[in-house]
Structure formats: structure tokens, C-alpha cells
């Protein structure tokens, strides 16, 4: 018996696929957003509202990730936006290889903005790079102010945090101030957008920031490099 040193990153295979994706997105000039949240936080609704305000200005596409069903892809298709559903079966997150396969389902060169809606899960999607420019986290404010402390990883990894369902705050007993403070402690650099998809409150701030990000082509790597 003998010992062989390996010293290899467990996620290296995923990283290779993510690098390939990033290269393809750069080549075709597609800005890519990875949308993450727990189930039921309102990712698809935030996406619908965002698409509604952007679809005249960008050539959009959406990749939907879910364990089963095409309900979300159907909702996006109803907006007249090309969508493709990845059903992961039992896998609780999207990985870069799944996205690599999915982009062949699009005429990627016809797009300049691609949303990837990850599987609803508050932990695992945060570990898997997909080759995206931005990681956006959607969080339902009524789920409580303490979750950023209990599940810090996704909040930490996000380039922006959308705090959704603020219209329900008066009925929930959740302090928005405390929630924002907790997000800030695990992620001091990401902008935070409290929004209501029902009333439209706060959406304009999110959209204005997002348009600027796309316009500046601010990639995730460049952002982190300047934050460090």
C-alpha cells in the first residue's frame, strides 16, 4: 500500500465546464444571470416582472431548473421569451455541465441576456459556478430575519440580494431593518433591494441597478477583484 498525493479541488470538473460556458458567453456577447433562492421565495415572479421591463431592450432567453415539471418554463414562454427547462430529477442544484447542454437548445448567438433560474434550494446552488456574470439571490422577507445567519453561504455568494414580498411584512412580524442588517453582516458588499412583485414597490431600483450592471458588463470576477 502506498500514499499518493492528489491535492485536487473536488469541484474542478464543474469549474472546467463553467469556464467553457463563460468563454462561450463572452464569445457571443451574452450577459448571464444565475437566479437562486429557497423554494417559494418568488424567483419566477421576480423574473417575470424583470422580463416585463427589459424585453423590449434585450434579446432574452431563460433556462429553468427544477426537479420535475415544466411549469416555470411554460410561465416564461407565455411572455414570448425563449425558455428551456432542465429537469434535474433528484439533483438539488444546477451544475455547469447541465447548463452547457442546455445552451445548445438555444440559438445562443441570437441572445444578449440569459437568465438561469436555479433549483429552489437555500444551500447547494451556491457552491456550483455555472459560468455566470451575476449571482442574484431572491429571499422572501416573511421567511424571517434570522435566515442569513442560519444559511450564510448563498447570501454570502450573491452579487445582489432581492428581498421579496415586502407587502406581507405588516402581517409577518419580521423586521426588515434586522433582516437587512443580518444580510449585510454575511455579505457587506452586495446591494440589497426590498421589493414587492405584487405592488411593484422597489422594482424600479432593482431594474435600474441591473441595467447599469449589464451596460458596464461588470463581470462577477471583476467585481470581486475590486472589492478585495
Amino acid at each position, binding site marked *: *500500500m*502506498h*500514499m*499518493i*498525493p*492528489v*491535492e*485536487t*479541488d*473536488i*469541484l*474542478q*470538473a*464543474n469549474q472546467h465546464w463553467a469556464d467553457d460556458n463563460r468563454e462561450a458567453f463572452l464569445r457571443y456577447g451574452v450577459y448571464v444571470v444565475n437566479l437562486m433562492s429557497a423554494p417559494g421565495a418568488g424567483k419566477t415572479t421576480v423574473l417575470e416582472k424583470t422580463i416585463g421591463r427589459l424585453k423590449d431592450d434585450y434579446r432574452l432567453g431563460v433556462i429553468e431548473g427544477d426537479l420535475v415539471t415544466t411549469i416555470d418554463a411554460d410561465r416564461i414562454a407565455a411572455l414570448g421569451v425563449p425558455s428551456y427547462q432542465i429537469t434535474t430529477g*433528484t*439533483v438539488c*442544484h444546477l*451544475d455547469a455541465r447541465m447548463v452547457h447542454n442546455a445552451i445548445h437548445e438555444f440559438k445562443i448567438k441570437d441572445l444578449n441576456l440569459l437568465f438561469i433560474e436555479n433549483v429552489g434550494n437555500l*444551500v*447547494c446552488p*451556491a*457552491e456550483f459556478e455555472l459560468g455566470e456574470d451575476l449571482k442574484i439571490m431572491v429571499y422572501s422577507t416573511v421567511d424571517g430575519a434570522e435566515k442569513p*445567519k442560519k444559511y*450564510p*453561504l448563498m447570501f*454570502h455568494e450573491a452579487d445582489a440580494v432581492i428581498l421579496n414580498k415586502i407587502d406581507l411584512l405588516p402581517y409577518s412580524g419580521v423586521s426588515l431593518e434586522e433582516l437587512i442588517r443580518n444580510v*449585510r*453582516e*454575511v*455579505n*457587506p*458588499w452586495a446591494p440589497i433591494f426590498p421589493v414587492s412583485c405584487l405592488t411593484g414597490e422597489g422594482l424600479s431600483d432593482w431594474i435600474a441597478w441591473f441595467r447599469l450592471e449589464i451596460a458596464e458588463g461588470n463581470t462577477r470576477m471583476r467585481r470581486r477583484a475590486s*472589492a*478585495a
Partner: protein
Amino acid sequence: MSIAQSVLDIAFGEMEKRAAGRVQKIKITIGEFSGVVKEALEFAFDVLKPETPASGAEVEIEVAPLTADCAKCGPIECRLNDLNLICPICGSTLHISGGREMRVDYLDIE
């Protein structure tokens, strides 16, 4: 489960390079501040190992602690169960220096 599978794929890749038949031990390091829970990973290995060249292998999982430092004030003690990346001394943003690892360290093969 996909993390455990990735570990085994890396191990089998190394074994193939060296024409090794069996692996007896796989040593990995998982950061405390990663999306992986040690117990869940151990369970995943128990499910995946049978009927592979790693069926009898021990998997040792070392958990690397979360560490952080401030560019101005140096290392700052940080606890995962009350993570705060704002420096308590100067208020600037802390940089995470450990706890995000996911690494296969070495194999014992025969």
C-alpha cells in the same frame, strides 16, 4: 451526492493513471463554510462506494475551520454560527481566508 461522486471520480482517475486495483483510504478536506455537511457526505459515500474499487475504502473527512482577516487589522476571530464579515475594530470588510475548501488531499492505494 454529486460531491461524493466527484471525489470518487477524482480517486478513480488517479488510480487509473497508476494502474491501481483498490483504494484503501481517501482523505479529503471540507471547509466549514461550504455547502456540504460532513454527515450527509459520509452517508453519500456509503451509498456510492459498494461495487466500486473504493468499496472497502475509509473516507477521512477533515473539516477546515472558518477563518477571516481584515486588510488593516489582521486575523479576526469569526464564528460560523454568528457570521459577521464587518471588522469589529475598523468596520471594513473581512476577507475569508479559510473554510471554503473542498479538496481531495491524498489516497492510499494498493
